[in-house]
Structure formats: C-alpha cells, structure tokens
C-alpha cells in the first residue's frame, strides 16, 4: 500500500466520517430529547393549523387544508432543523469550543469540515422533517407512491439551509446577531413559501420573492411527491434547490476559510 501522504487527495471522506462519528456519539446520548423536539413541534403546527384553520377553511388549492398544511409543515421542519444547527452549532464550535482548530491540525481541510457538518445536519434534518407526513397519515392523509421521494427532497433542502447556517455563522459578529438572521431572513422565507396558504393570493412582488425562496421549491416538491408529480415543474424545483445548495456551499466554505485560516 502506498504511504498515507501519497494517498491524500483534495477531498477525502475520512474527515466527513470523523465528523459523523462525533455526531453519532452525541446523538446516542441526546436522541430522545432531540427527537422529541423535532417531532412534537411540527405535530403542534399541524394540529393548530390543520385542525384549527382546517375547520374554517376546508379546502385550499384543491387539497384538504389538513393535507395542504401537513405537506407544508414538512418544509418548515426542514428549514428549522437544518438552518438552526448550521448557525448555532457551527458558531459555538468555532468560537467557544475551538473544535475546528483541533480538527484542522489533522490532515483535514476546511471544505471537508463543512461537508461533514452540513451532511450530518442535512441527513438528520431530512429524516426528522418527514415526521409531519407520518402525523398527517394518522389524520387521514392518503399519499401516492411518490411519498417515498420526500426524504430525498428534504435532505436536499436541508443541505442548502445547513450550509446557509454555516455561512451566516461566519458573518455574524456575535451569537446574538443570529436574531437578525432568524427574524429578518428565515421568518420571511417561512411565510412566503406556500406552507400555510397558497402564494397565489399574495401581491405580485411577494409571489416573485416566493419563487426565489428555496423553501417554496421544497414545499412544492413535497406536495407533488405526495399527491402527484408535475415532471417539468418539479425538475425546475429540484434545479432551484441544487443551485441554492451549491451557492451556499461556496459561501460557507469561503466564510469558514476566512474565519479559520489567517
């Protein structure tokens, strides 16, 4: 076998596996509380909107309101379970725990650290985000076979938002500054994504905003996966999510490199 120094490449999976090993060890310790929060929150959204509003609204955009919300909440869950860990975990590990300084003293480069962190968050978030579908099933949702594609959609969306979180963690001056990101960016994204109401009723400018909102594309894809694909449109939605994730990857790696290498 060739010596290790000759085998090292620009991108290696070993650092990604190293990050995953750490996360799995932590997950084994905290899976109960972590799962509780991830499952109960979308369930409450679903119960409150689906049955609260559902009793008043009945049908929206051709769907039962509870089905409309049940699929929309999947995207909401994806957003929050990916962007938040991306922002806070990364910031804390870099600034307070100096974990990345330790990792970067090993044969690991910044982009491999980012890949490890973002991929773990994306997979975990992608899986948890499917919980509202399970809850909605209990409340009468009757999905098509395409529902099995939902985790693919949520993992892809979560990857973009995890990287968004990593990037923003490199541009905020303090941990308190995340309030600006949460209230000024994430909340509007969440509201103009077609989660709780169709974007068709919004003013023109808000509809335009919705079309550049990655979460909107996630919502659309999840609904189409559950109730029936619209192949051409869905290809566009997938493309939008891929572009978003790729852009966030570039920004996250550049931001982390700027913060970790001087």
């Amino acid at each position, binding site marked *: 076998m060739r010596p*290790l*120094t000759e085998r*090292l490449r620009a991108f290696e999976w*070993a*650092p990604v*596996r*190293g990050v995953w*090993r*750490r996360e799995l*060890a*932590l997950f084994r*310790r905290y899976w109960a509380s972590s799962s509780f929060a991830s499952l109960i929150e979308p369930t409450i959204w679903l119960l409150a909107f689906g049955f609260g509003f559902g009793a008043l609204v009945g049908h929206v955009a051709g769907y039962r309101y509870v089905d409309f919300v049940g699929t929309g909440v999947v995207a909401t869950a994806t957003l929050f379970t990916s962007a938040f860990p991306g922002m806070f975990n990364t910031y804390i590990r870099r600034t307070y*725990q*100096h*974990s990345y*300084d*330790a*990792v*970067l*003293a*090993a*044969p*690991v*480069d910044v982009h491999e650290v980012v890949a490890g962190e973002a991929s773990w968050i994306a997979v975990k978030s992608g899986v948890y985000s499917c919980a509202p579908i399970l809850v909605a099933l209990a409340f009468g949702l009757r999905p098509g076979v395409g529902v099995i594609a939902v985790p693919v959609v949520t993992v892809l969306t979560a990857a973009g938002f995890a990287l968004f979180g990593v990037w923003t963690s490199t541009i905020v001056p303090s941990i308190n500054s995340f309030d600006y990101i949460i209230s000024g960016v994430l909340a509007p994204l969440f509201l103009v994504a077609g989660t709780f109401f169709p974007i068709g009723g919004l003013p023109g400018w808000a509809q335009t905003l919705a079309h550049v909102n990655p979460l909107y594309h996630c919502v659309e894809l999840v609904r189409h996966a559950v109730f029936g694909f619209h192949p051409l449109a869905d290809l566009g939605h997938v493309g939008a999510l891929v572009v978003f994730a790729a852009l966030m990857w570039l920004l996250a790696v550049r931001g982390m490199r700027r913060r*970790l*290498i*001087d």
Partner: protein
Amino acid sequence: MAIALRDVVKRYTDRDGTSIAAVDGLTLDVPDGVCLGLLGPNGAGKSTTMRLLTAQSLPDEGTIDVLGHEVPREAKQARALMGVVPQTDNLDEELTVRQNLEVFARLYRVPRAGLREAVGRALEVAHLTGRAETRVVNLSGGMRRRLLVARGLVHSPRLVLLDEPTVGLDPQVRADLWGLIAGLRASGVTVLMSTHYIEEAERLADTCALMSHGKVIADGSPAELIASHAGEHVEEHEGSPERLAEIEGLARRAGLPTRRTGPTVSVLRAEHIPSSLADTLADGGSNGHRILHRPANLEDVFVMLTGETVD
C-alpha cells in the same frame, strides 16, 4: 531536517490598519529526533509559528518545510505526519475520553483494523486507561491536558508540536506532563515545544531557540546558551535602591553584565568578578544588603539578550 523555516514573515493588520509582524523574518531548523524548546514571552510569535507549521496561518513571506513537505502547499501531507497539542483546551467535552481519541484516530486516517490498538496505546501513554469511558467534562485539568497530548499522539506521529503544554497547570500536574514529554523525547519523536517556562525548557529541550519580537535571537543547547551569555554563576544582590544602583555601576565598569529583577540586581558571570571588586560588592552588609550565589540559568540569558522577562 524535520522542520526548516526560512525568512518567514507573518503580518496581521490591526483594526486601525496598522500592520504588525507577529513573525518577522524567522529562520529556524529542527533536526530529526531533537526536542527543541521555543522560548519567549507572550507575544514573541511562538503560537503563530506553530500555526504556520500546520498552515492554519499562511505566511506572507518565506518558506516552510515540514517533514519534507512544503507548507502550506502540502500542508495536508505534513499534518498527517505530525501531532499537535494546542495551548487551548479544545477537547470535545460531551464525548468520553475514548470517543475523543477515536474521532481523531479517524481524522488521522488510522486504519480501522488498528484503531482500537492505537487508541489503547494513546490512553496508556497518557495514563488515562482507567478513565477511557469518562466524559471529558468530568476530568480534572491535568487529565484533560494529558488527553490533549494523547490526542496528538494517537497516530504515532514523527513530529509533535507542543504549544505551551503546561501553561496554567499546578506544579504537580506540570511535573506529571514533563514525565510524559520526556518519554516522548526518549522514544525518538521530534518535538517542537513552545514555552515561556524557563525550567520547562531547561529540563526537556535538547536545544533552545529564544524568540523575541517574531524572530530567533539566540539558539543552542541550554548549557551552551547559559555559558556563552550568562557565565556559570550569578551573584544576586538585594538592598536599598541606592546600593543596588551602586552595585550596577561597579559591575558594569568591570565589564560584567547585570540584570535587575524587582528588588534585586544580578551580576552575571560572577566567576569573573575580580577579588578586589568582590570585596567592594560585598561591603554593604548593613542596611539589609544581602547576597545570594546561584548558578546562571536561561532566564538570565533571555533577560540579558532582550531586556524582557519570560515567566
């Protein structure tokens, strides 16, 4: 040569735009199998030098070679062969001792088949075998420091960078770590150890490089440095400020270097004090004037050369 730095410069820019050279034309060689102590006060550029070697800082000028790899271009290859024990405790507190080592064994590409053995060996070296399943958050400061050393050794590196390995530790724990580092040195691993503890450098280093304002101002074995700059003995005088000023003047006129530390004046190369002057210097037994004879040490050398204190 395990490490070769040539004319390395690293500048930082202040908020007000002022450029400061943390490392300023540093040239340093660390031969294979040697323990080199990088000695200097806070701000001398020791930690920046360590970061330059791992490419966590990028040089503005100069060349860096680590174990035959040009850094930063081949930093990944160089880092695969070296272990780093940082000054900052950046252990994963939520994980156990073993889990911390396992994660880093993976990052260092220890083969799966040898992982358990590598972790076991690192635990043994750091005397942490009995604490393997303890979460780091529950370890004492000394154990955490030993775990940092174990983490840097888990892949059996050829070179170990120790950045202020015992800073802030109590004497018992420090002595414990010194034993660990001495063992490492005896095993033939090349060690670059930054420290501002004179005693640490004297005890552990085969050779020392004294750093001040980002460059090496003297190097050699501790004994050579002491002999060439401070002589064999030091005469320490304690007394009134007037008497100390008088002693300083007398010694300097006789061509003997002196250093002032708080309420004392030390006359270096005391073995060269002429007998006539020795009587004059000693003639001050009244007014609380006291004289202490001691061997010269590296601190004398450092203060002599820089006017700064290190500890």
